[in-house]
């Protein structure tokens, strides 16, 4: 335990305007298990990617077993004994599990594959993770998400690593699968391997790690061996930076019956400026009613009511089926069973286009791949869904378009040089505002927001939160899908929790507490032991 396997000193890394890592010093000893924790965008994944050679630090030094270590590529890092399972799975869906297991480090003699040996070892390897050996011949693309994850872990385990980095390995695993993983990790550490986890699962902390390290805004803010949830949460939260976005971990705003926001919303300029406030009469009328919605192996028998003027939260871990549920309501994914009613009338989901004309607008989860029209301007991005409002013959009335765009840029306080700016010239937060404005310009009755603040800076996040409040105050029904606890606690009037495709709880008012939400989301309703998390992490902003 004396000699650190991997030691980082003063690591800094900047992406454009974002200081992703700011002077982080960190060590993993041999046979040690370290959990790295922190909120979205805290820099956890970036730090791991510096170790893994994906990113190169702007400053600072790495040492591996006392030797200076500057991996310029993932390959070098792997060769040096740092093995990583990334959060975004990187595998070869056309190839077999066996081929995936050994890609990049095949057993071979002068380029000649020793397949029998790999198959033998592969069997054993899968066995350690309690996977059946016959899986070796299956195509990776045909496996379930959990199986894929386990294969990738097996792959990393097999790499004779000195340091094993696992970025949220258990988020889609069942408890039995997770336990298997921990057993394997135990064996590895017994052999002197250092293991580094990124995790949000407080319930697993003690089983998982010996030491807990907390990052916040790119800085290392604390280290402890005490798995005390509140203490860790306090370190991770560190709310002094952004009082406006104050997360009250225990207090839930109870706004039943209140038309305007409760906290410091009244003074917010955006609230006053977004649209008229005449729609209040519709409040509480159920806009979207879902009954018995099922989609094979995705979600099952979901009932959901989304009332006007309210923010309805939907919480669940990655893979719980939240996004899929939203896409099914839109009609982008099918629906095996169940009924949907919209504004009191039966509604057959038929795709985003039909949904938009009916007044259902969806803000997609992944801004980059599902939201932005990258080669187009801010104005074109903003107006694309509302083109019918400035054309009747198919010919665009550009004057109308300009004023529409200008109005929304102004209302949403989008920081841009204007209509003709390239969308890619905006910061992530402002891009997200454009996408939100895109939806608002269609004057929707129902807004489905899927992770609306993922990878966005704190200040913009607060603005978007205010906007969401204001929209609800106008009478729009909002379905807020989020894996960020603080967001739901702050915004939602009602929170539904999803676990592996089933609705596990519906909480409202004072019932909405972290532990209650988490119990629902982890499916451990019976298990009342304090379980807590801050939500699944994504550092998309940092990558872009």
């Amino acid at each position, binding site marked *: 335990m004396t000699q650190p396997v991997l030691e980082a000193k003063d690591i800094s890394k900047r992406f454009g305007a974002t200081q992703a890592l700011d002077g982080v010093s960190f060590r993993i000893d041999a046979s040690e298990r370290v959990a790295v924790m922190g909120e979205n965008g805290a820099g956890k994944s970036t730090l791991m990617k510096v170790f893994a050679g994906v990113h190169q630090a702007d400053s600072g030094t790495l040492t591996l077993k006392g030797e200076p270590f500057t991996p310029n590529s993932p390959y070098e890092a792997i060769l040096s004994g740092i093995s990583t399972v990334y959060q975004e799975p990187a595998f070869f869906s056309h190839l077999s599990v066996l081929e995936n297991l050994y890609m990049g480090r095949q057993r071979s003699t002068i380029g000649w594959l020793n397949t029998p040996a790999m198959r033998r070892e592969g069997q054993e390897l899968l066995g350690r993770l309690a996977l059946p050996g016959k899986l070796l011949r299956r195509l990776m693309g045909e496996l379930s998400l959990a199986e894929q994850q386990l294969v990738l872990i097996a792959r990393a385990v097999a790499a004779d690593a000195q340091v094993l980095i696992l970025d949220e390995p258990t988020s889609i695993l069942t408890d039995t699968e997770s336990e298997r993983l921990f057993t394997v990790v135990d064996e590895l550490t017994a052999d002197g391997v250092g293991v580094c986890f990124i995790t949000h699962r407080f319930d697993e902390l003690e089983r998982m790690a010996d030491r807990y390290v907390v990052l916040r805004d790119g800085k290392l803010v604390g280290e402890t061996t005490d798995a005390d949830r509140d203490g860790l949460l306090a370190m991770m939260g560190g709310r002094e930076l952004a009082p406006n976005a104050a997360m009250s971990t225990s207090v839930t705003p109870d706004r039943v019956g209140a038309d305007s926001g409760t906290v410091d919303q009244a003074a917010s300029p955006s609230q006053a400026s977004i649209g008229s406030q005449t729609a209040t009469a519709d409040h509480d009328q159920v806009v979207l009613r879902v009954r018995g919605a099922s989609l094979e192996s995705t979600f099952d028998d979901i009932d959901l009511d989304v009332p006007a003027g309210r923010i309805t939260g939907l919480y669940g871990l990655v893979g719980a089926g939240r996004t899929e549920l939203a896409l099914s309501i839109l009609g*982008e994914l099918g629906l095996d069973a169940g009924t949907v009613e919209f504004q009191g009338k039966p509604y057959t989901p038929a795709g985003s286009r039909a949904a938009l004309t009916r007044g259902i607008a969806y803000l997609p989860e992944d801004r980059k791949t599902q939201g932005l029209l990258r*080669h187009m301007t801010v104005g074109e991005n903003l107006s694309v869904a509302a083109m019918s409002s400035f054309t009747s013959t198919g*010919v665009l009335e550009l004057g109308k378009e300009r004023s529409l765009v200008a109005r929304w840029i102004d209302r949403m306080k989008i920081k841009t040089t204007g209509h003709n700016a390239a969308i890619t010239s905006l910061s992530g937060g402002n891009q997200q505002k454009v996408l939100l404005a895109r939806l608002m310009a269609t004057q929707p009755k129902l807004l489905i927001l899927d992770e609306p603040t993922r990878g966005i800076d704190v200040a913009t996040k607060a603005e978007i939160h205010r906007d969401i409040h204001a929209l609800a105050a106008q009478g729009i029904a909002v379905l807020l899908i989020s894996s960020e606890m603080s967001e739901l606690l702050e915004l939602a009037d009602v929170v539904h929790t999803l676990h592996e495709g089933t609705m596990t709880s519906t909480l409202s008012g004072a019932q909405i507490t972290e532990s209650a939400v988490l119990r629902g989301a982890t499916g451990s309703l019976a298990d009342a032991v304090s379980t807590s998390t801050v939500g699944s992490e994504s550092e998309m902003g940092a990558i872009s």
Partner: protein
Amino acid sequence: MISGILKDRRSALIVLIIIAIVAMSLISPYFLQINNLLTLLQYSAVVGVLALGQVMVILGGGGGIDLSIGSTMSLSSVVFGLAAVNYGLSPWIAAVIALVAGAGFGTINGLLITMLNLPPLIVTLGTMYLYSSLAQVLAGGVDITGFDREGFRTIGQMSVAGVPFQVLCILLPLGAVMAFVTRRTAFGRNVYAVGSNDVAARLAGVPVTRTRISLYAISGGTAALGAVITASWLLNAKSTAGVGLELQAITIAVLGGAAITGGIGRISGTLLALVLVAVLNNGLQLAGVGSTYQIGLLGAVLIISMLVRARGQSKTLVA
């Protein structure tokens, strides 16, 4: 602002065209003569019309490319010939039939590509064989002649105020219409949105499939238009009318600034690229450089124009 102008592919093309014109007029004293310039224009009409169709398909993204554009032109030409000769229809009606047929051939491409999610490169490779071979079979391998020529030759042979009819009354209006459609209509906006990011476009309510199918239909229609122009110009319907034109059309589209990945490019750029290629071809023709050398030069121009582009853009891992 100025750097914006300089970065625009079109300004680079204008510079290139000027340089080319100067160079060509030095090489051949006949180059700058009015007659020659008009001839030069005349030949650009057919390939220009095809390039306009091609650029629409490329703009629509999703690996959009139409290798079958030449074959579609051949097949439409045969359809025209059969309608005008075998069925004795007026060439004007036959022309309309050919246009509809061409759009239909394009729609078949579009349906296969969007409905079955197939790579455009391969689908249009398949239909390239299919259409050109069908053209040969239907025409029995020979040209179809003998349709009523009076009046119909207007398209290909007359000129208005010295400017060839097919340029003044077909190519330029078509270019203008397409420029208008792409920049000023909801359909055009949809095209760029689909080419830029089809998933995002779909979620924003853009009819992705319908837009893409329309693009292939347009491409097929322009190919048929090319066939009609050729038929009127040569006064016969050739079953091999479009052979080799797909390369030229793609080259002009890409040279004009259309990104092969979709979503980037302007109709005006395509037209400028067309002028550049026409100037180079015509100048070299006058200088007595054979047409095979022009093909090679076209290839070099294509690669060099991509090099300029590749520098500015991030490299992709996959071809």
